[in-house]
């Protein structure tokens, strides 16, 4: 520490510190500042101001030097990030380049990161499906991981709370496996999506294709206008950052909201080295930050610390927070910190054509992406040779047939042709995976990054359950496609590494028993009550629904609890 005089310490002391400014950190910052708490938001990357820092957002296709393609030298130098679907010329500046932030892959793991204010909430796919009772009771019922210390009823009001502010479009579908929420109008299914939905419902009693629920302002309420956001304009160029604030991002919503309160300090270029634990006080007193530009080490202090660095980096920070009391990482009495990491299996797809509904097409673009089929396997009881199940995306689209044949005027005519092609349909698998002790992250004993922080070793892989589930997905979707009369059905199964789903979870899981978990039912570190983890690291199991909405709800819930505990003088 360069300067320990009293004024300096005072300047560096806050009521709350939030590590990370993305999907969940933004929510923690909002909740604390709403209650008047002096809050420091730490972000390891640069600032990205809403609208101002979206350089590509209003570019036309022909204005991109390579028409969206990444130059080959960038692709070859960045094999990991280059595999991410959104890493193109319009959004590459929001993704971490491989060499700048190295890690060790004991097994292939595509760690997709966005180091900036807003984190990955800028580029996310915006799907917001609630988890259900079947998800929270899953581990206990099926005998894997540990029992979730909460049930659906504990989180339900907090889903409502965050949905109202974030703005979620959807229908009330009345499905127990995908509970309804506080919805703005849904983006409707198109002709073929609707046809498939009806076909599936008639053919199978427990299968449903609904409008995907997504974080788009289909019809904003006052609370959204108050954030400076406006109605989604159906551009579907979201990964560039949205000048309308049409979808939820921390940049458009929670972060400016927190800053507007006057109670927040945002410090970009601040990577957290570790959480400081005070042995005498028996709690954390602050965090040790390294300025990523000057490499200066600075300490900040607060009564409560929220760790929202994104799942894997949250694990890194906790593992690196070593003290006499916690020699193996903060709160790691159980030895499970860094273990039971899981993800979503996105490695199967199916596509086909449909020779019907020729009198219909779509007009404009659908921000929701189409339909969503909630999990129908093993919902009420175990009934297959694998545990858990999968959700399926389902979309139909009708484009024009442009002929590339020939040269000269014939070709020009062919390219200008307006003849509509057939409907094309497609689905992708979103499978739950089972958290296991053998899927873990750990600090490398020797290798450090540019800021002297240990590099992570990541050892995460698929297992036999994933293979069986994928086989079932492809069989079931093929059957549903076939009986629906779809033709030219093509299934594909790739071997994409875990991580590319960008739904990595766990490592600091919640649980009832401190001997087998890191966090309690309030996302509070069992053995260090003023530290909370409310991002993906806290997840006990993965469900098959997209997790961001659940991180938001858990964060708001935990912040509310932390504030009440502070008031009571308990932390």
């Amino acid at each position, binding site marked *: 520490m360069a300067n320990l005089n009293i004024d300096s310490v005072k300047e560096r002391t806050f009521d709350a510190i939030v590590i990370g400014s993305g999907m969940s950190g933004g929510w923690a910052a909002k909740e604390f500042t709403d209650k008047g708490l002096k809050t420091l938001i730490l972000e390891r990357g640069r600032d990205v101001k809403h609208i101002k820092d979206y350089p590509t957002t209003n570019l036309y*296709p022909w204005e991109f030097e*390579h028409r969206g393609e990444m130059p080959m030298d960038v692709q070859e130098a960045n094999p990991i990030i280059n595999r991410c679907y959104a890493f193109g010329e319009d959004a590459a500046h929001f993704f971490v380049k491989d060499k700048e932030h190295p890690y060790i892959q004991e097994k292939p793991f595509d760690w997709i990161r966005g180091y900036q204010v807003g984190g990955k909430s800028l580029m996310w796919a915006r799907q917001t499906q609630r988890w259900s009772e079947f998800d929270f009771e899953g581990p206990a019922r099926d005998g894997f991981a540990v029992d979730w210390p909460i049930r659906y009823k504990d989180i339900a009001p907090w889903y409502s709370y965050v949905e109202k502010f974030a703005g979620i479009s959807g229908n009330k579908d009345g499905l127990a496996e995908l509970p309804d929420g506080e919805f703005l109008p849904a983006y409707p299914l198109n*002709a073929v999506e609707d046809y498939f939905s009806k076909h599936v419902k008639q053919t199978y009693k427990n299968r449903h294709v609904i409008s995907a629920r997504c974080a788009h302002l289909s019809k904003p309420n006052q609370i959204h206008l108050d954030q400076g956001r406006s109605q989604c*304009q159906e551009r579907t160029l979201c990964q560039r950052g949205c000048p309308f604030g049409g979808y939820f991002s921390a940049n458009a919503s929670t972060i400016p909201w927190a800053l507007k309160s006057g109670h927040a300090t945002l410090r970009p270029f601040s990577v957290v080295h570790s959480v400081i634990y005070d042995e005498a006080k028996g709690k954390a007193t602050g965090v040790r930050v390294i300025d990523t530009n000057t490499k200066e080490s600075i300490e900040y202090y607060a009564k409560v610390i929220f760790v929202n660095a994104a799942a894997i980096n949250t694990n890194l920070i906790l593992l690196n927070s070593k003290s006499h009391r916690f020699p193996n990482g903060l709160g790691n009495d159980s030895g499970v910190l860094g273990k039971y990491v899981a993800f979503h299996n996105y490695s199967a797809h199916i596509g086909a054509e449909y020779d019907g509904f020729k009198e*219909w097409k779509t*007009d404009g673009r659908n921000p929701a992406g189409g339909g969503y089929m909630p999990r129908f396997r093993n919902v009420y009881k175990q009934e297959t040779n694998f545990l858990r199940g999968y959700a399926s995306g389902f979309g139909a689209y009708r484009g024009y047939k442009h002929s590339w044949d020939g*040269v000269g005027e014939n070709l020009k005519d062919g390219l*200008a042709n307006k003849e509509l092609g057939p409907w094309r349909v497609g689905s992708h698998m979103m499978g739950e995976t089972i958290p296991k002790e053998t899927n873990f992250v750990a600090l490398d004993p020797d290798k450090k990054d540019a800021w002297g922080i240990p590099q992570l070793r990541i050892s995460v892989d698929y297992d036999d359950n994933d293979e069986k589930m994928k086989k079932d997905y492809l069989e079931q979707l093929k059957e549903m496609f076939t009986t629906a009369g779809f033709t030219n059905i093509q299934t594909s199964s790739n071997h994409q590494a875990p991580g590319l789903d960008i739904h990595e979870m766990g490592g600091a899981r919640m649980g009832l028993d401190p001997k087998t978990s890191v966090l309690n039912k309030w996302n509070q570190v069992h053995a260090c009550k003023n530290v909370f983890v409310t991002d993906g690291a806290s997840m006990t199991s993965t469900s098959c629904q997209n997790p961001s909405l659940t991180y938001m709800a858990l964060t708001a819930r935990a912040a509310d609890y932390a504030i009440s505990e502070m008031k009571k003088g308990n932390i």
Partner: protein
Amino acid sequence: MDRRTALRNLALVIGAAALLPACTKSNPIVHYKHFDINLDQQTLITDMAETIIPKTTTPGATDLGLYAFIMKMVDDCSTKKDQQAFIKGMGEFNDVPKKLLNKSFADCSKKEKEDVLKSFEKKDNKYSKDLLAFYNTVKGLTVWGYTESKYFLTKINVYELVPGRYNAWFPVKNLKAGTKNG
């Protein structure tokens, strides 16, 4: 167009590439980041692109600067292996009009140039892998550059940056011509 005029015009078109009078006096070398080509080859690719997307009552490849786009994409966005195949195939290309019509591509009429290029799209053609790679690259990038040009996306197939609507059920009979992603 004489060579001097061609050279000047091309220098305007090629943008980042440096045109240096080297090697033979009459056939300067054009340096790209990852390879060199000569002026005759540059003329050939320009000519091929214009044959693929000719100027009619509407703009053609030359009007739209597609040569520069083709070369930028080959230079910046292709693998070393693909660049090598492109260069090798380009070297073999001159033999095709020679064999078919006993003249160089530059000396062919518009119709003959079209016939030469169409010979690559015949199913039973016997062209080498590299030669086909060269043709397919020039054709593909010409069409891509054309269909993503400002002209095409504002006049032929109008691209909307801000649609402001999603109609899930849109009757085909109500379709207005010229809307992309419509």
